[in-house]
């Protein structure tokens, strides 16, 4: 009886855990960001490709010396991406309509529901209330899962450092600026104010207002308003987003939505399965055990007799 009570308790506990967990993760998947989260509205129609943001980022984050000067426009010949040495890069794209080519700055989008954070099993990532997605290099084990999980291909890896392998990416200048209410270095240096810093909620209204007032200037869409559950960095563009290298196939569901069903199953697997299979095993072997016991017992008794 005691064993049966124990198994029953396990089953009830496991069922409760498996029911409770998924509902919790559904709530997480619909998180729309902290109310006072800051953001940056990137108006690509204003960018002139001067690369000042790259230079300012390099100095602010004390990154290594670049391979070529920051006023060298030959880098636009190829499409670059963020690296351990450059948390932000500007790329030039071709305009299909013969207009001047659009430029787009890329950096961490600072998702409301970051895929990197979801995927990190040591919790190295944090989404701060100011909107920044930062990481703790001290706990990072260098597994690179976040690089796979990021839908924007942002986190880079410091392969060059053999003894301190770290994932590196834009942190919204959190430690030196954002935390103190100041805009990131790239925003401050931008001569064109292609980058507008403000409350994310305000920037969305601002973006829609720009589209409404000058509809010829923009595609009627703010990239990042809904993509991947919403991002702190938002993009306005004259051409469709996919023409300036933004992935339009990622959908509006954050990464966590893809794994919440699986993650909801984990407690169930961990609690129900051991109990269930132990129970089945015990039940399956019960008669045999008892038979043996009985047999042995009677044999012993017989021997005694």
């Amino acid at each position, binding site marked *: 009886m005691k064993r049966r009570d124990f198994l029953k308790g396990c089953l009830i506990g496991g069922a409760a855990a498996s029911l409770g967990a998924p509902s919790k993760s559904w709530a997480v998947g619909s998180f729309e960001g902290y109310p006072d989260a800051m953001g940056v509205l990137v108006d690509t129609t204003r960018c002139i490709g001067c690369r000042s943001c790259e230079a300012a980022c390099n100095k602010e984050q004390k990154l290594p010396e670049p391979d070529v*000067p920051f*006023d060298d426009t030959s880098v636009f010949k190829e499409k670059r991406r963020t690296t*351990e*040495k450059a948390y932000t890069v500007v790329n030039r794209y071709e305009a299909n309509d013969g207009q001047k080519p659009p430029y787009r700055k890329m950096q961490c989008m600072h998702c409301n529901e970051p895929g990197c954070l979801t995927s990190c099993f040591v919790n190295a990532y944090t989404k701060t209330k100011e909107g920044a997605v930062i990481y703790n290099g001290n706990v990072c084990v260098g597994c690179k899962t976040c690089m796979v999980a990021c839908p924007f291909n942002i986190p880079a890896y410091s392969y060059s450092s053999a003894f301190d392998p770290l994932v590196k990416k834009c942190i919204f200048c959190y430690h030196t600026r954002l935390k103190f209410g100041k805009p990131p270095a790239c925003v401050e240096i*931008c001569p064109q*104010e292609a980058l507008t810093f403000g409350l994310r909620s*305000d920037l969305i209204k601002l973006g829609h207002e720009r589209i409404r007032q000058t509809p010829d200037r923009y595609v009627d869409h703010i990239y990042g308003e809904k993509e991947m559950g919403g991002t702190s960095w938002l993009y306005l563009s004259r051409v469709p987003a996919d023409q300036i290298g933004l992935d339009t196939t990622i959908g509006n569901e954050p990464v966590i939505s893809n794994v919440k069903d699986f993650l909801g199953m984990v407690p169930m697997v961990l609690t129900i399965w051991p109990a269930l299979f132990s129970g089945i095993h015990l039940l399956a072997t019960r008669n045999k055990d008892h038979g043996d016991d009985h047999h042995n017992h009677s044999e012993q008794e017989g021997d005694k007799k």
Partner: protein
Amino acid sequence: MQTKGFWLAGVLVVLLLAAVPDTSRGISVPDMITLNTQSKLYEPFKFDHAKHIQLTKECSNCHHHTTGTLVQEPNCVRCHRNSSETKVVSCRGCHQADPFTAVAIKERDPKIYHNDMPSLKAAMHRNCITCHEKMKGPTGCQDCHKRSKEGDALYNSGAYTPKNKPAKGEHGGH
């Protein structure tokens, strides 16, 4: 931190020097304006106001509706049909030096008009560069303001140009 200081200094100078009085009221119009005198990243430069007046002949091309031809933009006309020339026509009269302070962001009310006004620095750059593109004027950074030594350091250019390094790790990170 350093760059912020640079820009603030630059912007302050621009603030002091950007005032361009109104011709129509007989106030003396400067022929030359020195801009950027205390900027750290770029050297001061002389803006030839007289030449620009000759070239464009229309004050409102740069000064919007504050002087010269008044409001014509259909969206603005809805309120400003009868608005007259303004007392202050300088850029700094309307455009803020630092639009991203905590106070400025708090006051940025999405419901009111004129809440999306570019900063002084952006207003000047966008005004100049947009027109220069149209009129085939110079558009490079150093075409207007020559970069300083500190600017060279920030951009890793000039004397601070990176020495040719081995290709190893050039595409580091992936």
